[in-house]
């Protein structure tokens, strides 16, 4: 009996070894040979879009998705990609669930199973990191409209293109903005304090702030970090800020910590001449609707603002149609992803001149990559407050820029900088808490 069993085990192990070796050889011979089959139906160009459609960022994902959908709707109703015989763009969605490894798996699925010509996404920098790595591996263009971590374009990728400005560019612009403000009050801003959440984003931003602002001659008097998922109180931190007496407070926060911080600043009556936030929590709908007067006169860096319609005729048109379709306004997220899809469209037109995706998919992807690398779109064709779109050798759009907005007493943000887009004059320095309660 025992012997009998042992023989069974031996046989099983033998089968296993044979199977393993066989499959192994098969797989190994096949490495690199994963050639995508030619797509069945012509006249369609498939684009993969990876977004956090479920999970913690599902609400943001919804916004981003609308931006993409709307752009695709406009492109297709204008007659599709003309150089490809009016082929319609079809979006295949991938859900990152806000997790890096899911993003990678979805990128793979879209490339291999769905045969997309390019990937667009993926909002969070960590997810963009893994998803674009997969794209690089498969030699598929990855167009990123919405991640701001500077490291993304420092990796030397050849298939990665970022449309949005990154945090480094934003910070440089913020320094310019503060210089500009400072001129208005005769150099009243000298001391700067920073408070930031401690994930990759907040930490990077704080590091850049420290570097750029000290380089510009400001004194960094305090840098405070906190762990957003567990923060329950800012009392000690605000007390510390009161002591260090900064003229300007720089903040990088997510939603609930931003709310808690502003409420605490109000309750403890911490006064600084200006507070400048790095969007994120400060421009989220949940923050704007709930912060109340604690959030008045706070500046925030933004990529987009509702009042830009007054300054940009093209945006006005798009915004009205978008509102008719979805019942909500464009915001920084939907506008950037909308722009991303249009940028891709211009590149598709160029690539289609060389080869059609249904003739040779991989060759088309290469053509698309080249088209993106050589692309120039002037600012007046965009709905973003940018000078245009042009990628440098790292794949970063060098013509993008941010704007600075300020929350006024009606609880809405207004653009105050750069002057050519401003709809209001900045309120600066902030009125004191005593003046406000009157």
């Amino acid at each position: 009996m025992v012997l009998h069993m042992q023989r069974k085990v031996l046989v099983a192990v033998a089968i296993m070894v044979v199977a393993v070796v066989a499959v192994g050889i098969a797989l190994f011979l096949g490495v690199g040979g994963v050639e995508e089959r030619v797509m069945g139906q012509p006249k369609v160009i498939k684009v993969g879009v990876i977004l956090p459609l479920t999970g913690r960022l599902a609400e943001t994902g919804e916004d981003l998705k609308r931006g993409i959908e709307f752009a695709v709707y406009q492109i297709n109703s204008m007659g599709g990609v003309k150089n490809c015989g009016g082929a319609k763009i079809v979006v295949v969605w991938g859900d990152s669930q806000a997790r890096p490894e899911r993003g990678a798996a979805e990128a793979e699925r879209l490339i291999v199973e769905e045969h997309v010509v390019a990937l667009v996404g993926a909002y969070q920098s960590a997810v963009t990191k893994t998803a674009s790595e997969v794209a690089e591996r498969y030699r598929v263009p990855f167009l990123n409209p919405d991640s701001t971590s500077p490291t993304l374009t420092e990796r030397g990728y050849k298939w990665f293109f970022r449309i949005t400005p990154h945090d480094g560019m934003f910070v440089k612009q913020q320094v310019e903005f503060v210089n500009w403000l400072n001129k208005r009050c005769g150099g009243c801003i000298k001391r700067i304090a920073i408070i930031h959440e401690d994930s990759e984003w907040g930490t990077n931003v704080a590091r850049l702030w420290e570097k750029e602002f000290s380089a510009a001659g400001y004194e960094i008097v305090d840098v405070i970090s906190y762990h957003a998922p567990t923060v329950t109180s800012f009392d000690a931190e605000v007390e510390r800020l009161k002591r260090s007496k900064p003229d300007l407070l720089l903040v990088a926060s997510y939603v609930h910590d931003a709310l808690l911080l502003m409420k605490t600043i109000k309750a403890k009556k911490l006064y600084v001449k200006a507070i400048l936030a790095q969007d994120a929590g400060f421009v989220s709908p949940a923050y704007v609707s709930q912060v109340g007067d604690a959030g008045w006169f706070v500046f925030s860096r933004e990529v987009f603002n509702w009042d830009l319609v007054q300054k940009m005729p093209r945006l006005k048109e798009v915004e009205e149609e978008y509102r008719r379709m979805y019942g909500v306004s464009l915001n920084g997220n939907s506008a950037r992803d909308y722009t991303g899809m249009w940028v891709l469209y211009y590149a598709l037109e160029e690539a289609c001149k060389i080869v059609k995706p249904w003739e040779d998919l991989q060759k088309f992807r290469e053509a698309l990559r080249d088209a993106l690398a050589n692309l120039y779109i002037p600012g007046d064709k965009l709905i973003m407050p940018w000078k245009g779109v042009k990628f440098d050798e790292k794949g970063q759009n060098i013509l993008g820029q941010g704007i600075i907005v300020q929350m006024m007493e009606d609880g809405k943000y207004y653009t105050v900088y750069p002057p050519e887009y401003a709809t209001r004059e900045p309120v600066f320095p902030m009125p004191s808490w005593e003046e406000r309660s009157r």
Partner: protein
Amino acid sequence: MDLTVLASAIVDGLLMGLVYGLVALGLALIWGVMNIINFAHGDYMVLGAYIAVLFSLLGVDAVYALPFAFAVVYLAGVATYKLVIRRILDAPFVSQIAATFALLLLIRYGVELVAGPRTWIVESVLSGSVVRVGPLSIVCSKLFAGIVSIAVFVVVYLFLTRTYTGLAVRAIAQNRSAAMLQGIDVDRVNSIVFGLGVGVAGLAGALVALVQPVFPELGGFYCLVAFVSVVLGGFTSVVGSFLGAIIIGLSESLSAVYISPTLKNAIAFTVFILVLLFRPTGLFGRFGRRV
């Protein structure tokens, strides 16, 4: 760092510690009586917080939500006991962990399913106002939360020491089979204890909603803090856990100022492991044991 910052950190730590104490107290009570670790404890707390959110959405001041938060979560606790906890009282340790962990997932994501993943802020008459004591400014809602915590703690303490049911609870904590022999309806008392334990946490949740924004994962952090407090307090001691929670609150706010806000939880956990190693009976092991 000067004295005002220190004093402010102490006051803040103390007040947050009192709220932590309410969460920890219920955990210790359940643990002491049923010998069950309720991994979902923090999420029952969040239930209470969402009741406060609901009140403010309906336009009622969230302060009035406190008794309702307690009552609703108490009932939820009794139901949980009857449906789940009762069946795992004598189950292997792994099943107990798995079951309460399952409760955690159910409540946390159930809440997210209903209320969405967004962050809510609760307004009340107290929010925004400040009490000034010398150079210190104390946020009113936090002061209120601290005072209510003390009051609730006193009520629970009196319940355990002065009422018949309280005596029964303590008898079961001492020796379950002996209590059963004396004719105590262990099952009924257990259901009360579980309801009370999570109910107090629910009340703490409503208090938390007054002082900080509310979101579905909020409970995880409070639960960990409660565990640490309970360990500090000598495991099953209600009084000890309450004191332990205050220590955690203080150590947190002080380390946030003097070391690093990111590491403040790491410090709490380090304290936790050190206590387990060197004072396995907790800091207040003998004081107020099993009360």
